[in-house]
């Protein structure tokens, strides 16, 4: 009955190709129309779910203080010294123009640094460079000394040698229309940059900061879309023409690929899914996976045609033989991708769902539109005498004759690679999400070399009562902590209010250096701050360091780029310091860096559930399809080994595992299963239907599916290798490891599975035989 149903589907397609073509194109256009709703969400926060504890901690800290999304204009002098009247005037004007950037609410630079000096009983609070007209007469050495000795500035805003500085713009995105706000900021940023660069040929300007990074997510994906997807198409077209030697078949396949991608992306648009750095790789993946279905149908069809069948009959036979396997492999692939729903990171859930639906769309189209198109296109195949020996026969002979060597040596390789899996280091460094060809990465590396990195930690210390941050005990603890943090080897810079209070104390005592220390009473400190706050200009207030109640303050530590593990360890050390030295205060540590530091581990833990569930479902499906619990269990080994081996091999390639790779195991599971399905089903068919012994059954399996497996694996590996060329490391690593895993899967299926089958089935067959004999 079921068979009857499915035959009706493709019979209809073969008999009414025009109707089927038009009807499916109509449906595809309707689905693809959803593409108009697709917008790119360019914000690092998309990688975190709303429940993510590190995101929640960071957001609540941002509500108490102020937001810290920034654009950093990194300025450096070609001459090596920024402290000349011309250069300072340029930085002054850059600072002024930076205020014009949409949503900016704070600009920090060396020129608008609020310098405090005492003159008798006067306290002067003024921009370090107030008026550019005064610069030619100003004492450059003195200005440089002030800037490079000020702990607030040095290593954060200005390099110790005065050659590199940043103009740091803090923006507060309203978040009402995230799709438009970011481009709005960036177009002004570029305008400011271009004006600065053309006016100041002696200065270099680079762009870094969280906002620029967010923008780079979108840019990288667009670049990928413009380079990788055409490259993929070229690869597919060339390899199909080369391997299958068919123009019409290639054309029909390209149509299937395009329509599948269009329908998948369109449905995502209807479903209200945002595009992100991760989901931008969907077209490449769907493209790769959709090819496999077409290749299987074409291979069998040509085989039949070479043996004299008409095109229609050949297609019919091909669809009858392939329907089951294609359906099964599509389902298992979809299940593998659906396991990504367990990911802690929403873009990967979207990625999984989109590819899963893409795979199913590809399946439907390849049994309807694909045969319909082939019916309409001219297709000729030279009849050819079969019987010439295929290269795969040699491989079969080799595997069979060397099985006693292959089994233990392959087992050794598997176990050997497995041992290296735990050697991989957990790391999510968002700066390194972009390769060194990306301007943001270059600017950030440059900033890190000369000033400080993008790894930050914001430490909020709660004094427990209103205005209690002024308590000497609290200030001393804060100072001690700040000093401790400064001494940590990873630390580049610590921004702490105690420096400001110490400086004010000095100012209030006629700039006497011996008063550069914390005041003795709460009242003094409170009154200094009152005085200071009244003298600050718009946007340079203390609201980013103090809450409104003055019951808690925020220290910002900036560190060189360190791995996620080291960040988590540093975070623990910070908590430990407070446990030991100031347990009376409540402390929270949060930052975007920490969010990324934790996401890899969180995601791996959540993905383990997804993978387990997918594995159970897939193995059950295989058991049903192979009609054998025993082979369902045997299939576990070749299905699980490739991902594990891939991760072991990864240690030698990169050695760092993060958010992107944590989904690879689940994702590849569904793909590598395909090979096992095809091989095992043919092996079983030979045993049960043709009564062959294990050795002959292996030879049969090689002969019948070896070539198709080889071609589809090649296409898949090429496809994911193209993805591996992405400048966005999340996608590149994902592509590379997937390609590796798929390739390993083929090796395992060719060199390990057959010897294993021959060994296991030899024993059982002997037992059966001896039982029968007795």
């Amino acid at each position, binding site marked *: 009955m079921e068979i009857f149903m499915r035959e009706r589907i493709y019979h209809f397609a073969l008999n009414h190709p025009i109707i089927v073509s038009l009807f499916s194109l109509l449906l595809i256009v309707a689905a693809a129309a959803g593409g108009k709703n697709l917008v790119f969400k360019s914000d690092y926060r998309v990688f975190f779910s709303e429940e993510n504890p590190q995101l929640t901690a960071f957001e609540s800290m941002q509500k108490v203080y102020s937001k810290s999304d920034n654009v950093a204009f990194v300025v450096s002098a070609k001459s090596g010294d920024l402290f000349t009247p011309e250069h300072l005037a340029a930085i002054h004007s850059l600072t002024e123009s930076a*205020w014009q950037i949409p949503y900016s609410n704070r600009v920090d630079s060396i020129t608008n640094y609020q310098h405090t000096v005492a003159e008798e*009983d006067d*306290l002067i609070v003024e921009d370090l460079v107030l008026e550019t007209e005064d610069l030619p007469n100003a004492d450059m050495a003195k200005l440089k000394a002030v800037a490079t000795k000020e702990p607030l500035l040095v290593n954060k805003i200005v390099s110790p040698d005065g050659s590199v500085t940043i103009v740091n713009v803090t923006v507060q995105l309203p978040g009402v229309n995230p799709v438009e706000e970011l481009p709005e900021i960036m177009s002004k940023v570029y305008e400011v940059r271009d004006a600065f660069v053309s006016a100041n040929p002696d200065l270099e300007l680079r762009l870094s900061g969280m906002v620029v990074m967010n923008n780079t997510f979108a840019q990288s994906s667009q670049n990928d879309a413009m380079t990788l997807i055409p490259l993929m198409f070229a690869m597919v077209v060339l390899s199909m023409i080369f391997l299958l030697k068919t123009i019409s078949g290639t054309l029909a396949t390209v149509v299937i690929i395009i329509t599948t991608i269009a329908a998948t992306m369109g449905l995502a648009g209807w479903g209200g899914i945002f595009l992100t750095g991760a989901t931008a790789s969907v077209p490449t993946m769907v493209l790769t996976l959709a090819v496999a279905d077409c290749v299987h149908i074409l291979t069998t069809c040509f085989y039949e045609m070479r043996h004299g069948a008409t095109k229609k009959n050949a297609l019919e036979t091909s669809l009858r033989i392939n329907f089951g396997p294609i359906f099964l492999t599509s389902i298992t692939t979809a299940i593998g991708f659906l396991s990504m729903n367990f990911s802690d990171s929403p873009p990967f859930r979207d990625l999984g769902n989109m590819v899963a639906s893409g795979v199913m769309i590809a399946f439907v189209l390849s049994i309807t539109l694909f045969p319909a198109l082939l019916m309409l296109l001219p297709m000729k195949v030279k009849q050819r005498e079969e019987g010439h020996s295929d290269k795969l026969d040699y491989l079969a002979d080799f595997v069979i004759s060397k099985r006693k060597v292959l089994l233990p040596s392959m087992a050794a390789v598997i176990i050997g690679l497995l041992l290296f899996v735990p050697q991989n280091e957990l790391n999510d460094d968002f700066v390194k999400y972009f390769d060194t060809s990306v301007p943001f990465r270059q600017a950030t590396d440059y900033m890190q070399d000369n000033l400080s990195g993008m790894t930050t930690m914001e430490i909020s210390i709660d004094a427990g009562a209103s205005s209690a941050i002024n308590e000497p005990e609290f200030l001393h603890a804060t100072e001690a902590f700040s000093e401790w943090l400064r001494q940590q080897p990873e630390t580049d810079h610590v921004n702490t209010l105690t420096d400001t209070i110490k400086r004010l104390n000095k100012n*209030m005592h006629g700039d006497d250096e011996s008063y550069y220390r914390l005041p003795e009473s709460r009242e003094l400190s409170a009154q200094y701050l009152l005085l200071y706050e009244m003298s600050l200009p718009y946007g340079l207030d*203390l609201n980013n360091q103090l*809450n409104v109640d003055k019951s808690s303050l925020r220290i910002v530590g900036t560190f060189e780029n360190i791995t996620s593990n080291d960040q988590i360890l540093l975070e623990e050390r910070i908590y430990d310091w407070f446990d030991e030295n100031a347990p009376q205060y409540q402390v929270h540590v949060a930052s975007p860096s920490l969010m990324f530091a934790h996401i890899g581990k969180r995601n791996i833990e959540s993905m383990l559930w997804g993978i387990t569930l997918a594995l159970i479902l897939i193995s059950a499906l295989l058991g049903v399809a192979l009609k054998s619990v025993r082979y369902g269990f045997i299939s576990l080994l070749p299905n699980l080994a490739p991902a594990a081996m891939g991760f072991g091999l990864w240690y030698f390639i990169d050695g760092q595992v993060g958010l992107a790779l944590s989904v690879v195991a689940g994702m590849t599971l569904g793909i590598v299963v395909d090979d096992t399905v095809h091989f095992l089903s043919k092996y079983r068919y030979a045993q049960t239907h043709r009564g062959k012994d294990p050795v002959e059954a292996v030879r049969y399996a090689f002969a019948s599916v070896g070539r198709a497996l080889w071609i589809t694996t090649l296409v898949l590996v090429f496809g994911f290798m193209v993805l591996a060329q992405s400048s966005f490391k999340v996608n590149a690593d994902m592509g590379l490891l997937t390609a590796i895993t798929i390739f390993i899967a083929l090796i395992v299926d060719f060199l390990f599975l057959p010897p294993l089958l021959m060994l296991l089935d030899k024993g059982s067959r002997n037992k059966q035989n001896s039982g029968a004999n007795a």
Partner: protein
Amino acid sequence: MNLAMTSLSTLMATLLVATPLMAQTDAQAEKGLTISKESKARDEGWGDMQADMLMVLRNSQGEESIREIRLKSLEVDNDGDKSLSIFDKPLDVKGTAFLSFSHPVGADDQWLYLPALKRVKRIASRNKSGPFMGSEFSYEDLASFEIEKYTYKYIKDEACGDDTCFVVEQYPVDKYSGYTRRVVWIDQSEYRLQKAVFYDRKDALLKTLTYHDYQQYLDKYWRADLMKMVNHQTNKSTDLKWNNYQFKTGLSDSDFNKNTLKRAR
């Protein structure tokens, strides 16, 4: 020569095109100025004034913090007012006194007495755009209104509550102002400020100030009991609640003297 010619012809062209436009702009500026002058004139002659001010600061999560200040002001003819603020809360700034002589143009003179240091300090700063005691009011927002501080442009009439308001744009003259402009709603019956909307240096909407519960003193001077400032960019807000308004209490120049600041109560 060539350059001069070009700029001359550009100027001519600009004049030709812009003349009718400028006439309109002039009329708007004139009307804006007239309205503001009338508003200022109706509030003249109060002499001196005292009041208690309660500040309620809120962050975007609604957490509150309180400041209490006593304010004394002295009207000065042909110059900005003199004012003395005495801080009562938070307790650790109790007794701190802030004296300011505001001037229509240029930096104000400011002195602060710090009881913990037992010293009077003069604050030399052009900055008046920063937050006053961490609130959403800047010093600029709280200083006395002087005609010379702005240029004006009348926009339109608009209903406000039961009244009709003049809507006037005011452009700060001081280049150290935190704003490009503020738009004020002045009611036509009494020329009182009902609302002010502030635009930051990039001309983006920054804050809205609304005046509530006006009371009339000495049958002439209107003062709002409550002023609410909302920052649209940060979602923080500050309420100013006024109490115990007293007029003509006999304050004189000697009460606004930096040498007697220490004894301010």
